[in-house]
């Protein structure tokens, strides 16, 4: 059963059909929410809210890219959650050392396949990138996440964030420039793979 049929089934009251769509898109939705929110619990809440909202607003879907329509709901849910958290600040649960100091690195759940050194480097880099994304204004953040993190094209991104194509281009350029400036402080963390030589740049 293709996407259109599942949507129609869901509109006819078949919750299982909608849940098939949820299972198909939940990783993407959670990733986008996590990169926008920067925190797993908040991302989980926003993702769940987004799927509930998507089901309730399914009549408003007027064809076109369902992925873009869903991602718009996800980004809006993230903005709502961010605003709610700004009004009622939530203290993140962080692991504490025996002396009471809080670990700076939030990625305390380590990947068992990586060596301890690699794991620390990876976590540090991921954290640095995420912090740079977090510094961005919401409207720049969503465009950067959708295009550079999730690899969506400009058209789908424009549909997802509800802005013209030109706005997407300019927001993306400014967001990239901001992250570039932000990451300069962490440049030593970047592995050789990301350090392009002049020939590759051409």
């Amino acid at each position, binding site marked *: 059963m293709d996407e259109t049929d599942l949507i129609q089934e869901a509109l006819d009251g078949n919750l299982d059909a909608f849940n098939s769509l949820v299972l198909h898109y939940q990783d993407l939705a*959670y990733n986008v929410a996590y990169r926008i929110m920067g925190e797993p619990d908040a991302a989980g809440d926003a*993702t769940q809210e987004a799927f509930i909202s998507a089901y309730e607003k399914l009549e408003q879907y007027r064809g076109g890219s369902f992925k873009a329509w869903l991602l718009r709901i996800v980004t809006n849910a993230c903005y709502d959650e961010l605003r709610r958290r700004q009004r009622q600040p939530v203290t993140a649960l962080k692991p504490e050392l025996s002396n009471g100091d809080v670990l700076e690195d939030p990625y305390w759940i380590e990947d068992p396949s990586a060596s301890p050194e690699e794991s620390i480097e990876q976590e540090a880099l991921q954290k640095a990138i995420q912090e740079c994304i977090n510094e961005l204004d919401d409207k720049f953040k969503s465009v950067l996440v959708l295009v550079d993190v999730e690899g969506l094209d400009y058209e789908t991104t424009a549909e997802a964030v509800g802005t013209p194509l030109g706005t997407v281009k300019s927001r993306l350029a400014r967001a990239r420039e901001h992250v570039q400036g932000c990451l300069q402080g962490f440049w030593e963390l970047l592995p050789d793979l990301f*350090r392009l030589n002049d020939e590759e740049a051409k």
Partner: protein
Amino acid sequence: MSRKKRRNKELNMLSAYLDDELNPGDRKQLEKRLDREPVLRERLDNLRRIKIVLGSLTRLKAPHNFTLTPEMVTVRRKKRKPLFTFLRLASSFAAILLVLLVGMELVLGGFGVRERLMAEAPALESDAAAAEATPEPLIIWGETASGGAGQKGDVDGYGGGNGEESESLEYTEPEQAAPTEETVEEGILSQEMAEEERAAGEAEEAPILGLNPDEGGEIVARSEPAQQERDEAFAWRGTVRWIEIALAVIAMGGGVVLWLLRKR
């Protein structure tokens, strides 16, 4: 154009160039500039690095399934189109009516029409045959009595005779005598008796069995009411048949259209 604006424009073009979103003209122009401006190329390289770094971010899997349960949302009821609902109701109603009608016809034998017609048909045929075989009227006015017992005599009444000759109706005037009180009373009584007899005679001359003697008094078995009833029965049966056909068309047509709508 201010320096800041020019710089922003260059940044937008470089970013779009990275994603291959520039039109061919702008792309060609930018590539010429990149060849002769190392600073611009350096900016492009930095943007490219950022794009690669961002793309290297770990793809996270959802920590759990975000599937919905009926408790989380109000499961919508299936919305049916008005035409769909109308057709469904109409065809169902027509089918039920058709079944009832056919069932009643089977159980009641076509509302008793068939049996009545079958029972009447031989009777009517025998009546007609009898009428042809014995052209004598059943009731004849003004000739002989048709009474069950009496055949003899010249009687005005119907079936009153018993075979004896009736007395002469000649009336002789009684001798005139001086009227006494007795004779006066007898006279009054005889007048009253005469009036009663006259009234009885008039009553006997009145039409019987709803027949009009003015028509000539000759009635042979009439078949008009039976014919009329038979015509009505046929008409009623024809109407029922047409209703059954119409119901069958509605039920089957509705079903076909519903099936086509569902398939679409």
